């Protein structure tokens, strides 16, 4: 009985693994074939030397950094305040943070284009810089569910209220409390949310494309339509970036504070 | 003596290089309630799981009602088991949980319903049939688990620390209830626990286990009053241990902190000059001379704790301390710290630990 179930487990696992590993191997193999008759990293070299790659990738990295900053500024004080003072607002906030999972990104950006056009009251789309800002905002919305969850989980493990009251008794002001007590303690959680946001934002296509921004996602799509081996190289690079972000989150989670004094 | 109902014969179990149970044997009479008592890691749960069929013994035999079940699968053994974490099926109601074994055995629904109602009466939760486990308290869930285990009329009931997850109060009332149901149904039961008070209060016999072996098997009275080994003496109940030196083996004289005590007929095999561990239960000691307590030691009162009906007194005898309990009496003031005191005991109550 035991033996049989283990056989099935291995079979399922083996078939699944093949499905997941094969495209990666195939893509990698394909990406090495740019030079006729031998394997080479020519496709990667041509990608890295492409000025469009450099500019779009840099652009997306900058946008991702601003997205993370905006996300942290928005989420950390809110999640903290909700835990500390307005616990009955929690369901509302949680519901709002889950909305971006319900409303597809394409619908959100459609709404932006309709609402923030050049002759509206908030004409984000009138200038390129304004559109950049709107893209950052849109990405912050997309990352909101992940950021909020990460931070809220972090706050839950450290027992915010006791820490805050302890700091107040010792005479700390609000800035000190947030900067010196809360942030360092939820830093790991914030960083996890940040890396996840980064992984989501770096190759995002829909919003960037519809807002006509020179980001990495639209660049990828464009390359795919116009060359043979570079797309495979870019797919491998993208996978490596996603993998890197996820590994960093895993590594960080090992340093996360274990529940202070309350197990919930 | 009748044939044993359950016979565990020279059972061993090793996982890789570590041996968890070595050469464990025990015969259990029909209808008997036997507890396996010991600290965690002593092998008590492993023996139980071998009886249930979840572990296969590395050597030895398990016989139930004359039939060798050592290699039988758990679902063919007809044993009932209750787990520490209740393990009720969360998707089934209380009644469906209790009926599970009956349904699996193919009992007609009307019969099964009747049996379930009967079980709910026995565990005194007759109104709870339609509830789901998550709606019940821990104590209620464990009673349902008990009902589920005994509903198919198993030959053996195995209880794996069933009370450990419960509050102290519920624990006491449920253990009494388990015992009374077990007696009423006459079902042969093995009860695994690390709680000595629990084991003493409900068992017909106790097997005290340590390091994969049975240290002693006996009635609660024997285990408590005549512990066979140092481990049993220490694990079961509170004990005062004094070190002594044999001064005259022939007449049974032992010196404890430069005071002589006579222990006639207790020193079997010890020579003069041997050191011994002498043990006394707190209730076997009294403060001051008492009739029938033939031995005494002088010391000084070091601590007094007023606990209500009882006063716990610690008396320093040279380098060691002895605890004893005296009843509170409104007429006499409690002893004071620093007073000289004499403790007395019957030399026959003194345990000599080898």
């Amino acid at each position, binding site marked *: *009985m*035991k033996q049989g*179930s*283990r056989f099935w*487990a*291995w079979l*399922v*696992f083996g078939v*699944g693994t093949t*499905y997941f590993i094969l*495209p990666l191997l*195939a*893509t990698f*193999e394909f990406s090495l074939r740019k030079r006729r008759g031998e394997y080479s990293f020519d496709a990667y070299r041509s990608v890295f030397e492409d000025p469009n790659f450099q500019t779009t990738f840099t652009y997306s990295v900058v946008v991702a950094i601003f997205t993370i900053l905006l996300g942290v500024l*928005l989420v950390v*004080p*809110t999640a903290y*305040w*909700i835990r500390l003072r*307005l*616990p009955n*607002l929690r369901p509302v906030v949680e519901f*709002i943070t889950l909305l971006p999972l*319900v*409303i*597809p990104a*394409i619908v*959100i950006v459609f*709404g932006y284009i*309709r609402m923030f056009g050049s002759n509206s009251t908030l004409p984000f789309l009138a200038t390129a810089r304004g559109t950049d800002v709107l893209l950052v*905002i849109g990405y912050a*919305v997309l990352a909101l569910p992940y950021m909020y969850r990460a931070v809220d989980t972090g706050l839950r493990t450290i027992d915010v209220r006791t820490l805050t009251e302890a700091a107040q008794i010792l005479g700390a002001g609000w800035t000190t409390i947030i900067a010196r007590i809360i942030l360092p303690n939820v830093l790991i959680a914030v960083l996890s949310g940040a890396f996840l946001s980064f*992984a989501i934002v770096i*190759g995002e*296509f829909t919003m960037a494309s*519809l807002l006509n921004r020179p980001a990495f*996602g639209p660049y*990828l*799509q464009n390359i*795919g339509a116009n060359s043979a081996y570079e797309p495979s190289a*870019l*797919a491998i690079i*993208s*996978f490596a970036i*996603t993998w890197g972000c*996820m590994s960093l989150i895993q590594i960080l989670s090992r340093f996360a504070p274990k529940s202070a004094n*309350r197990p919930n | 003596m009748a044939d044993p109902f359950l016979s565990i014969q020279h059972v061993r179990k090793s996982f890789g290089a570590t041996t968890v149970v070595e050469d464990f044997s025990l015969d259990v009479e029909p209808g008997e309630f036997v507890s396996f008592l010991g600290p965690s890691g002593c092998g008590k749960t492993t023996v139980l799981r071998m009886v*249930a069929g*979840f572990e296969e013994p590395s050597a030895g035999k398990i016989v139930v009602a004359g039939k060798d079940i050592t290699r039988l699968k*758990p*679902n063919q053994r007809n044993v009932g*088991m209750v*787990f520490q*974490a209740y*393990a009720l099926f969360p998707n089934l109601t209380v009644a469906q949980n209790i009926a*599970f*074994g009956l349904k699996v*055995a193919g009992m007609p629904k009307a019969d099964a319903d009747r049996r379930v109602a009967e079980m709910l009466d026995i565990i005194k939760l007759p109104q709870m049939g339609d509830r789901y486990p*998550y709606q019940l308290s821990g104590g209620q869930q464990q009673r349902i688990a008990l009902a589920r285990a005994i509903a*198919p009329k198993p030959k053996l009931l195995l209880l794996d620390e069933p009370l450990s997850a419960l509050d102290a109060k519920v624990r006491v009332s449920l253990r009494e209830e388990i015992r009374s149901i077990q007696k009423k149904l006459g079902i042969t039961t093995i009860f695994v626990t690390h709680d000595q008070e629990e084991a003493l209060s409900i068992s017909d016999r106790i097997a005290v286990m340590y390091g994969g072996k049975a240290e002693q098997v006996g009635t609660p009275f024997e285990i408590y009053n005549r512990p066979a080994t140092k481990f049993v003496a220490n694990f079961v109940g509170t004990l005062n241990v004094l070190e002594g030196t044999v001064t005259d083996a022939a007449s049974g004289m032992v010196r404890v902190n430069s005071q002589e005590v006579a222990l006639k007929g207790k020193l079997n095999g010890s020579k003069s000059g041997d050191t011994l561990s002498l043990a006394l239960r707190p209730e076997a000691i009294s403060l001051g001379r008492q009739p029938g307590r033939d031995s005494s030691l002088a010391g000084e009162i070091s601590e007094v704790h007023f606990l209500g009906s009882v006063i716990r007194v610690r008396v320093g005898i040279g380098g060691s301390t002895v605890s004893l309990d005296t009843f509170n009496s409104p007429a006499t003031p409690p002893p004071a710290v620093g007073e000289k005191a004499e403790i007395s005991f019957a030399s026959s109550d003194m345990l000599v630990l080898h």
Partner: protein
Amino acid sequence: MADSTMPQTASVSPRAPEISRLRLPLHWLGVAPFFVFALLFLILPTVGLIAGAFKNAAGDYTFENIIALSQPKLAAAYLVSIQISVVSAVLGALIGLAMAVAVVRGGLPSWLRSATLTFSGVASNFAGVPLAFSFIATLGRLGVATILLRDIFGINIYSLGFSIFSFWGLVLTYLYFQIPLMIVIITPAVDGLKKEWGEAAATLGATNWQYWRMVVIPVLWPSFLGTTVLLFANAFGAVATAYALTGPSLNIVPIQLFAQIRGDVLYNPNLGYALALGMIVITGLANLFYILFQRRAERWLK
């Protein structure tokens, strides 16, 4: 949850009266930025679209746009979208569950479990353009697997009617993020299956199959259903993977909407809003069911 509110009432209530009078606005200031942000960049744009779906070009309220969604091309787009999402969700859920059970309960070495979970975390986020590239390199007309199958096994999948740009090609690609997402979400539920349940069932005389039929499957069912509808919503809203794989040609809702936003291909902006509303309704319903199923599952597996 319940106990976390207790210390607060205990510690705050003695000074509550004066604080509430003095600090009430401050209480709300703490969360104001968040609510303003959510209102401005999440709720209002969406509500605007929804309202637009019920207006005509002149701004009058009408159901015309909703009715116009039934025109053959749009109805077909919804149908194909729903089909792709359902098929990829159901397959993804079944395969993902099988893998989660294999890894958690199948007696495989424990390092495989953490490796699988880590990989699933990566792969469930590896959607979009690069994923499409990978599958073209693997199963495209000149893909590595296509060539291998043709040259070594003599199976020409393209002459058998397969194409990576077809319905099944898309499903196969979507599974690359659907299965891992299932594994990530369902593993805690599989973990929640207590070993003692199986042992209790065995001592009560149940066979392995009876235990699965009467306990395991019913217990996992709500989580399974809930995650399946979540996978459905996940596939339904996916734009980039489909667009990079098939270009603007495939008639599914997100791609239709993409083309509409780009260039008003429907020649009616309000119809575009209705198209978006349809997406919100479908993904919204899916998420609602997810929450309902999840609530039931949590009650059992707490």
